[in-house]
């Protein structure tokens, strides 16, 4: 949703809140229609002052419900949308930007991690900072694998493949190993070789 649409939605919510407030105030007798509008327009709202019993509760209930819904929608619209980046910048110059999708970088790193003996599954997250790229690799390893020897191998391969193919510095590689499967969000190690 672009900014124009969001402004329209916020304006709509404000109108809803104003309408609900007006009906509530009139129904509850806190605001006379004559004070709100000049004659004869105030007659539109006059029936609200004459409600009784079930009708009164129905109108008040619906208005309170819509008012609360409007308040919730208003705050949801004001919360900034997640600006999580979906790509890392490879190069930026006067001719334009070159970016690589995070998934393509993750696949490269996972592929390299999968070449190391003892790695069963790999899941990588990529973060970009002004000084370079940070990689966080979660590895599922065999019980016989040694994290002390396997970790540096994965770090070395991941750094080499990212720096070679993307031309960006890798400034941090965090390795986390476990023997259990990585779970739902993991990316299975799969050689993407043609």
């Amino acid at each position, binding site marked *: 949703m672009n900014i124009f649409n969001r402004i329209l939605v916020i304006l709509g919510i404000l109108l809803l809140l104003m309408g609900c407030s007006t009906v509530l105030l009139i129904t509850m007798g806190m605001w006379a229609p004559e004070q709100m509008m000049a004659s004869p327009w105030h007659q539109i709202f006059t029936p609200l002052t004459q409600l009784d019993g079930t009708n009164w509760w129905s109108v008040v209930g619906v208005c309170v419900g819509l008012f609360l819904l409007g308040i919730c929608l208003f705050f949801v619209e004001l919360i900034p949308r997640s600006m999580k980046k979906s790509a890392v910048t490879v190069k930026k110059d006067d001719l334009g930007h070159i970016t690589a999708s995070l998934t393509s970088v993750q696949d490269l790193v996972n592929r390299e991690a999968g070449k190391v003996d003892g790695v069963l599954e790999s899941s990588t997250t990529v973060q970009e900072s002004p000084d370079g790229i940070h990689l966080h690799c979660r590895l599922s390893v065999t019980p016989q694998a040694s994290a002390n020897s396997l970790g540096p191998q994965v770090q070395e391969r991941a750094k080499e493949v990212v720096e070679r193919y993307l031309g960006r510095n890798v400034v941090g590689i965090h390795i986390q190993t476990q023997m259990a499967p990585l779970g739902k969000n993991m990316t299975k190690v799969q050689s993407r070789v*043609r």
Partner: protein
Amino acid sequence: MTQSISSLDEHLIAEAVTRSVSRVPETGTLTGPGANFSTVGPGWRVWGVAVHREGDTLNIAIELVVTIDKDSSIPAISARVRDMVRAEIQSLTPEPVGWINIRIADVHVTEQEV
């Protein structure tokens, strides 16, 4: 014979971009609903290419799938694509080409080891 493109025909420009990308070995534009960019008109859509006009300048965004080996890199392939696209567009229209943004959507690595 050079085909003249009217200043409004983004369809031909997008197709020219796709054509020039296909001339660079190991690259292709991303096609299908997975593509973030596309140029759309009545009854047609060119996936993986977005054509923007800023005044008289043509700006282009391309989404690529590339295959790389140990001797190539994403910046090098992207530079070749940019050069090819720029040359193709400039051979078709006098409109100046501004920025050409390239997004690598997917990378395939050939069997050669790094």
